């Protein structure tokens, strides 16, 4: 019994370690413990929009529509795949600036991230 608990404990630790490692990989040099800032896509609208965040912030977009959307910066510096319902896309903004983006499937949908 004790052995099982220990094994589970190690397994949990291992999972945490793997998660940390994968976070490091996907977020590059700006890893910290802050949770991602959420932007939802609902009824063909990005919200909140616009948003102002400190440099190093990770934004996570979640598509809540029954129609696929994507997230593409106007200058193509970041681009998601098509997000089906409940799929997400994350991107970390390391440098200050204003980043305009849109859904290239429904280009009337536009958004802006101000990084300070």
């Amino acid at each position, binding site marked *: 019994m004790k052995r099982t608990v220990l094994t589970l404990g190690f397994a949990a630790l291992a999972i945490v370690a793997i998660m940390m490692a994968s976070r490091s990989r996907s977020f590059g040099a700006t890893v910290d413990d802050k949770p991602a800032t959420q932007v939802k896509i609902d*009824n*063909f*609208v990005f919200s909140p929009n616009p948003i102002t965040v400190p440099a190093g912030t990770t934004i996570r977009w979640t598509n809540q*529509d*029954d*129609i*696929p959307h*994507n997230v593409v910066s*106007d200058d193509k510096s970041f681009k998601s*795949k*098509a997000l*089906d*319902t409940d799929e997400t896309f994350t991107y970390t903004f390391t440098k200050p600036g204003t980043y*305009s*983006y*849109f859904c*290239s*499937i*429904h*280009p*009337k949908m*536009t958004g802006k991230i101000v990084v300070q």
Partner: protein
Amino acid sequence: MADKSKDEILHDHNHDGIDRRGFLKCMAWAGTGAFCVMQGGVLKSYSLSGLTGLKAKEIKGELSFVQISDSHMGFNKPANTDVAGTLKAAIDKINALPTAPGFILHTGDITHLSKPEEFDGVDQLLKSASAKDVFYVPGEHDVIGDDGKQYLERYGKNTKGAGWYSFDQKGVHFIGLVNVMNLKAGGLGSLGNEQLEWMENDVKHLSKSTPIVVFAHIPLWSVYPEWGWGTDDSAQALGYLKKFGSVTVLNGHIHQTMQKVEGNVTFHTAASTAFPQPKPGEAPSPGPMKVPAEQLRSLLGIRDVNYVQGKHALGVTDSTLE
């Protein structure tokens, strides 16, 4: 197709059409059926009920084809969990037409997510259609993630650029346009300069009495720009068609039937075979509209188009999948 007493159109015009200025609107919303005859650029529309005699005389012509649109293969949300089933119903409807169509036009959004198996699914189902030739233009859902590469590999043979082309059938000149590529932030559908230039040359040498049919996914008229239902540079394209007496524009994208006459041009949008979308501005967004299951097929449909040579007329009949 079967006439149904409940079919009616909201506006029943008998236009004289000559020198008419401004916009003449003839709207047949989703769930209704409309019979339209165009003569010299004028659309005459009638409700489907009480049409039997006229149909036989007026609609039988040298050329008959069907438009289907927005099959969204792969869509599985509550608005329709069986888009293959409703596409099959559309094909059954086509196969039951009194006059077998010469070919099918598919005005885009063949698939929902541009997945190979979604394209395969539509191709497979369409094999059972009475008309073997299918002419496509892409919708924005067919070019997701690869800028239309897969679409072109499948359907782009004998096309130019992103997949535009023209062909002639029984004296009617058909032009398939692509307005879903390189869309700009905040913008509408877009044809682009290269395609516009091609189109200008394509129609330059045609006689003005040639009936023209233009088909593209996103409407080539401003249906509701707030929802992206229009094409930024469509006016330029339509400018090349001013000299022609009869121009018919067939679009999809908005998942409901709607018509408008403007000068020599009659615009039609088609119903989807997959799911309905709300009327312009009548919902928070143009997303799929969930309706009671028993109503769904009354909001999906196909379009039958007939051309009578000499009469200079295109007869357009929308019918639901019920």
